[in-house]
């Protein structure tokens, strides 16, 4: 089901959390709301869920064309996975997953047997077979997250919403689960919206990235497009891995480390190149990074292959020529 968000505003007292947010989330896509803390991304997610209401006015949220703005969260039919999973800690894994089915009114409630088989089906789906009787405090972080996911899916939600799904996990598990979630999403094909402050996570995982800042959307696009064509200095810097060069009185200019070519000083071409001195070298693995200092004092981070570095045979303090394609931010 597609999600369509139309001119949403949200204030908490005098603090503006969202300003005129409009956004289309295509059916079946995996969309990331990316931004620093305080950018409004979690508030937007909670408004889509119905856990928070937008300011009175023109704001509309539609699921597949149907206006759901006035449908309370209880009836909105969203699967929501909380940052710290919010599992019911006095219930077993199976009871947690079954919760959404057992609270249905009697005439819609499946029989015990049906609930049990649905729970088993979901346990299979999230690869937690055999853990039905465990309690949340007997599970690892990654397992808890998958229980929360299964619980949210049990009610056959129209859309899936995840708040910082990997926020509470350590780096190793995070990578694994990221890959698993992508694959999982492709299998079940449910329109999914997730919040993250980690640009690498958003770029690697999502079909569509929504970059947010200060209660507004800065840019929306495919990860590749957002990375290659950032529309504002903020997006450039937030997506990371970028050198900023701002000469006196001019607009800031950006260049990514891998877009800088390093040549022998002897190959210096005054029209395109600048002379620089190597101040830092790091080469473990296939990619080497070095830092060079331009004559006007700017430091640039440069990435090149290990092979290129070996060919150049550089050491700290050597002079090199750097050739780069500098972008404005527009």
């Amino acid at each position, binding site marked *: 089901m597609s999600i369509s968000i139309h001119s949403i505003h949200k204030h908490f007292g005098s603090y503006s959390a969202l300003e005129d947010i409009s956004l289309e989330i295509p059916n079946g896509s995996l969309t990331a709301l990316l931004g620093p803390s305080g950018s409004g991304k979690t508030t937007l997610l909670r408004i889509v869920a119905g856990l928070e209401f937008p300011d009175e006015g023109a704001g509309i949220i539609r699921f597949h064309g149907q206006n759901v703005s006035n449908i309370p969260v209880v009836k909105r039919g969203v*699967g929501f996975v909380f940052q710290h999973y919010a599992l019911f800690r006095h219930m077993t894994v199976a009871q947690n997953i079954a919760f959404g089915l057992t*609270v249905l009114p009697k005439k819609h409630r499946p029989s015990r047997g049906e609930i049990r088989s649905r729970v088993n089906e979901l346990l299979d789906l999230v690869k937690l077979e055999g853990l039905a009787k465990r309690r949340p405090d007997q599970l690892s972080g990654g397992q808890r997250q998958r229980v929360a996911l299964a619980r949210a899916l049990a009610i056959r939600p129209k859309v899936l919403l995840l708040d910082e799904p990997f926020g509470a996990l350590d780096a190793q598990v995070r990578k694994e689960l990221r890959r698993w979630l992508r694959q999982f999403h492709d299998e079940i094909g449910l329109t999914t919206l997730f919040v993250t402050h980690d640009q690498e996570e958003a770029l690697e995982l999502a079909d569509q990235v929504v970059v947010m800042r200060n209660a507004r959307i800065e840019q929306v696009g495919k990860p590749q497009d957002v990375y290659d064509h950032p529309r504002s200095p903020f997006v450039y810097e937030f997506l990371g891995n970028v050198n900023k060069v701002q000469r006196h009185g001019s607009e800031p200019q950006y260049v990514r480390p891998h877009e800088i070519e390093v040549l022998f000083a002897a190959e210096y071409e005054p029209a395109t190149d600048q002379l620089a001195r190597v101040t830092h070298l790091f080469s473990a693995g296939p990619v080497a990074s070095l830092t060079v200092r331009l004559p006007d004092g700017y430091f640039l981070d440069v990435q090149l292959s290990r092979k290129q570095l070996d060919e150049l045979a550089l050491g700290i303090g050597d002079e090199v020529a750097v050739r780069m394609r500098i972008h404005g931010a527009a």
Partner: protein
Amino acid sequence: MKGNSVTSESHAVRFILITCTMCFLALFLFLPLAAVFAEALRKGWELFFASLHEEVALSAIKLTLITAAISVIANTIFGVSASWLITKFSFRGRSLLLTLIDLPFAVSPIIAGLVWIFLFGSKGWFGPWLTEHQIQIIFALPGIIIATLFVTFPFVARELIPLMESQSNDQEEAAITLGASGWQVFLRVTLPNIKWGLLYGILLCNARAMGEFGAVSVVSGHIRGKTNTLPLHIEVLYNEYQFSAAFACATLLALLALVTLGLKSLVEGIQKSETKDRNPLH
């Protein structure tokens, strides 16, 4: 008793501290308790049971149980609603409510009794109206219950508010997204999470309701066999120099205190082992 080296004192200091504490405990806590039981049994078991079986004693016990039952039920309902209101919503007057809940703790028992005389006594604000309709509150069961309710009013709420404040709203929100109604959220998510704190609050509330003397004494009128609760009955016996009977009844209240403390440490033990299992992440 291993302390870390910076804060641990020398053996002599520790010995003196422990001895002082122990002497103090023996003198002020253990000795009186022992005295109650010793005095009660001084004239033998027969008299002990006889004084408990006396008609006025039985009626005092009955009155105490009725009062405690009603107060505990009412204050449990009130305490849970108030804590829910205070911790899950922000509204105007929230901190005022929080302060008012503590009022019975701060006020002297005589005032806690007298206010009801001012309100419902024959010369009080509502006195004439009550007399006209032949409703008796003061010097009768309703007055005793009202005074007890007032005095025991903070116990459950005071126990629950810090507990519920420390728990985030996440589980409730999760239950709502899964389609649970407000009542289902309360019964199936909130209540199980606060059950030990609630039980503890109820225990304390019950102990106080059964033992309350001051406020109840003001509104009761001390009518033997009618408006005397157990603590009031004990006082009457004592004033009539029936020491053994007085102490026999006092053992009941002392036992109540011991049982309450025993259950309290049991509840705390369970609570602690439950939180210890929990992963720090959760």
